[in-house]
């Protein structure tokens, strides 16, 4: 694929994409920059096409070469292409045509590939040209007929046609010498009698004046045709740009992305830098993209009132030019979304012919911004609903689980205060109940607080390089302190590396997991193992309990989730959710598997990230320092 810089190139890009898709091959879009052949504006435009191609799955390349064919041959040879698709505008004369076929031949020979040439002239313009040509011919024939009827030879119309062609081909300036030359030829060649030319002969004078008027009329017609063609081409390019921008904006999901797309497209379009100004958090206004920084502008809140409804509906729409920048308000039905700030090279104002385009881009941007805002609002609404639902579940679970121990404590305490003395055994039993239930309450509250703080990010993890032995030891000890000796088999190889973890949090994880395992299999030992894997340490806690059905393997880590069989065991379903949250802020993973031979097996993978701490000073057993004399 060889890309030019004209707006029509988009058709070439799309054709390339279609052909590549039909043939199921990868494709490369190439722009060859021939030094001195394109303006910076055209180069920017070409970048837009290359980007479009890359969005359609092409690899892209930007080459510099002495000629297009040279560049294509080099790049094609390097990549081993099978086919070259070139766009071509109508040849401007035989030399152009020859040049075209020569370079094609060179490419074909060097690469040994098929070349597909795609005519790129828009059909609309061609019909217009043909039509205007027919008009011209018609006018010329009518005049010729008139002249013949008056007894003059019908030659002048032919000259007029010639002059018209010159004007069409090389512009109006050339038409004046051309008509003079035509007249000279006419006077010297056709007016033979009387010769030399007699200005007194009124018929000849009339003849000449008529011929001159006619040629100028033809020139005017041709000129208008040119103007219209140019306008048409520009509109086509503009429509295309607006369409492409619309598509790019359609993919944006944040205001930042909108700003980036705008800045990029406007650079290609106006050779200008663009910024999006819109309200941020609080009173401040954001200016995006941050780099390069936008030139200082008046406060957007002061600018906005200048874009009254009437002003932005005025025809022609006139953007605001202040300092070195052009501004347009991005105002939708929901009020002002922001401002678009544009700085052209040298700080000049935007040309009037571009005002309309600028406005339509502003409209597109407004739509994109509004869409982004609604998207955010919808997301927020979803989050709100979710957290509302969470709150309800939480309230439901908490109120029940808080009330049960409270009821027991209240009941036990009031029984103890009854005037009738209770038997000693009952009294002690009630006291133990008050102690146990208050401990349960305390545990529930701290679990709830922990989870809330973990999930809201209020707990800052403090990772330190630690030995797992110590964390495991602390957890086992704390469990045995409240439950008495437990059958926990610990297997930690001495070769285990230091692991970066938050001791207090990871201890909580182990306590929750060991506690669960013990609760579900009180008779059999719980096994805790750890081993090193590349980049991580794996921890396993395995029991011989009833296990967890596979369909709950994910859900057991959800808040308040309890398996149907555990609904009566007094838990609230927070323990594993806390484990999940803690492991997550460690950057690790936690999951549960069925243990071969029965039971559940929880695994934790903790990443060994960062540099392990520096080596310690050497410390040996000195031969002199004996522990006993």
């Amino acid at each position: 694929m060889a890309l030019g810089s004209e707006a029509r190139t988009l058709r070439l890009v799309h054709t390339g994409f279609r052909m590549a898709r039909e043939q199921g091959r990868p494709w490369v879009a190439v722009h060859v920059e021939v030094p001195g052949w394109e303006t910076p504006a055209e180069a920017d435009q070409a970048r837009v096409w290359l980007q479009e191609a890359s969005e359609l799955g092409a690899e892209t390349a930007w080459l510099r070469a002495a000629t297009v064919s040279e560049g294509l041959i080099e790049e094609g040879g390097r990549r081993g292409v099978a086919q070259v698709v070139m766009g071509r505008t109508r040849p401007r004369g035989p030399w152009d045509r020859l040049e075209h076929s020569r370079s094609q031949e060179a490419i074909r020979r060097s690469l040994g590939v098929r070349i597909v040439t795609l005519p790129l002239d828009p059909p609309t313009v061609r019909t217009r040209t043909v039509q205007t040509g027919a008009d011209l011919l018609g006018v010329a024939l009518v005049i010729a007929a008139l002249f013949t009827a008056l007894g003059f030879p019908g030659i002048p119309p032919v000259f007029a046609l010639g002059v018209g062609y010159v004007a069409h081909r090389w512009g109006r300036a050339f038409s004046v010498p051309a008509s003079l030359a035509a007249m000279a030829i006419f006077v010297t060649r056709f007016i033979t009698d009387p010769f030399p030319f007699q200005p007194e002969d009124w018929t000849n004078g009339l003849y000449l004046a008529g011929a001159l008027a006619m040629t100028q009329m033809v020139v005017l017609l041709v000129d208008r045709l040119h103007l219209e063609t140019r306008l048409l081409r520009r509109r086509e390019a503009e429509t295309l740009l607006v369409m492409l921008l619309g598509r790019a904006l359609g993919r944006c999901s944040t205001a930042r992305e909108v700003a980036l797309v705008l800045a990029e497209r406007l650079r290609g379009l106006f050779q200008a830098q663009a910024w999006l100004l819109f309200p941020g958090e609080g009173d401040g206004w954001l200016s995006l993209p941050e780099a390069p920084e936008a030139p200082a502008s008046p406060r957007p809140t002061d600018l906005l009132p200048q874009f009254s409804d009437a002003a932005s509906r005025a025809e022609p729409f006139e953007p605001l030019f202040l300092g070195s920048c052009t501004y347009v308000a991005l105002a939708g039905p929901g009020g002002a979304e922001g401002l678009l700030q544009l700085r052209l090279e040298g700080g000049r104002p935007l040309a009037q012919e571009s005002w309309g385009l600028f406005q339509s881009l502003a409209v597109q941007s407004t739509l994109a911004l509004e869409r982004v805002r609604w998207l955010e609002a919808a997301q927020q609404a979803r989050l709100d609903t979710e957290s509302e639902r969470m709150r309800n579940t939480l309230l439901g679970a908490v109120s029940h689980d808080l009330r049960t121990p409270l009821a027991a404590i209240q009941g036990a305490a009031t029984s103890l205060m009854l005037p009738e003395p209770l038997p000693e055994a009952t009294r002690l039993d009630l006291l133990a109940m008050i102690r146990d239930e208050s401990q349960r309450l305390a545990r529930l509250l701290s679990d709830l607080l922990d989870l809330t703080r973990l999930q809201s990010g209020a707990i800052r993890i403090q990772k330190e390089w630690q030995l797992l032995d110590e964390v495991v030891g602390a957890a086992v000890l704390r469990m045995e302190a409240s439950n008495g000796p437990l059958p926990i088999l610990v297997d930690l190889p001495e070769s285990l590396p230091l692991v970066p973890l938050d001791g207090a949090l990871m201890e909580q994880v182990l306590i929750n997991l060991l506690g669960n395992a013990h609760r579900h299999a009180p008779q059999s030992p719980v096994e805790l193992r750890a081993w090193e894997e590349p980049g991580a340490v794996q921890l396993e806690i395995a029991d011989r309990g009833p296990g967890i059905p596979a369909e709950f393997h994910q859900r057991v880590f959800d808040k308040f989730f309890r398996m149907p069989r555990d609904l009566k065991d007094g838990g609230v379903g927070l323990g594993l959710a806390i484990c999940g949250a803690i492991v997550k802020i460690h950057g690790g993973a936690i999951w549960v598997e069925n243990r071969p031979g029965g039971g559940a097996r929880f695994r934790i993978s903790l990443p060994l990230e960062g540099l392990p701490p520096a080596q310690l000073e050497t410390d040996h057993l000195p031969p002199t320092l004996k522990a006993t004399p």
Partner: protein
Amino acid sequence: MSQPLILIIEDEASLRRFLVPALANNDYQVLTAATGADGLAMARSHNPDIILLDLGLPDLEGGKVLQSLRQWSRKPIIIISARNQEKDKVQALDLGADDYLTKPFGAEELLARIRVALRHATQAALDTPVLQCGSLRLDLERREVSMDGVPVRLTPLEYRLLEALAQRAGKVATHAQLLNEVWGPVGAGQTHYLRIYMGTLRRKIEPDATRPRYLLTEPSIGYRLNVD
């Protein structure tokens, strides 16, 4: 010392209501103060043998009260704090508090801590060079360590670490305190030194390193040599 005097500086009435009878019933004299200012004044006028100080006082920061007390008193101070105040606890311990209790706590735990603190205060006065806890015997004068009479060979750093813990036997020693005493200024912030040496020390002293009996971990705070 008959009937040691305890000063409780605690703003919550319900906690005072539980503490006063529990302590009085165990042969302690009890004084209470509800604010930091009152507490400081009572400490000066009564010179209590031990002070229980709540970190969450309404008028003064617990740390401030502690600093003022430590300017003139070497008497044991036990911090009472809520959960999740690890930073405050460590700060208070580094400022010279002897131990801490985390709310909610039981009466047994409270009494045990008070006993250790008082014993430590009297022991420091006696300057006993030999520490015997369970099977572990540590002779600070002769620099000897043995388990059930069997000598244990320690490297110099391991010994210094055990010695630093023994000087606070039964009380918590913060990471910063241990690092400073064993490694000096270069140890500041290098808690992994401490963890590694604690690991090797446990393997030499503890019968089961994953169920430490002597060298207990106080998560996020430090270590404690258990003497019970």
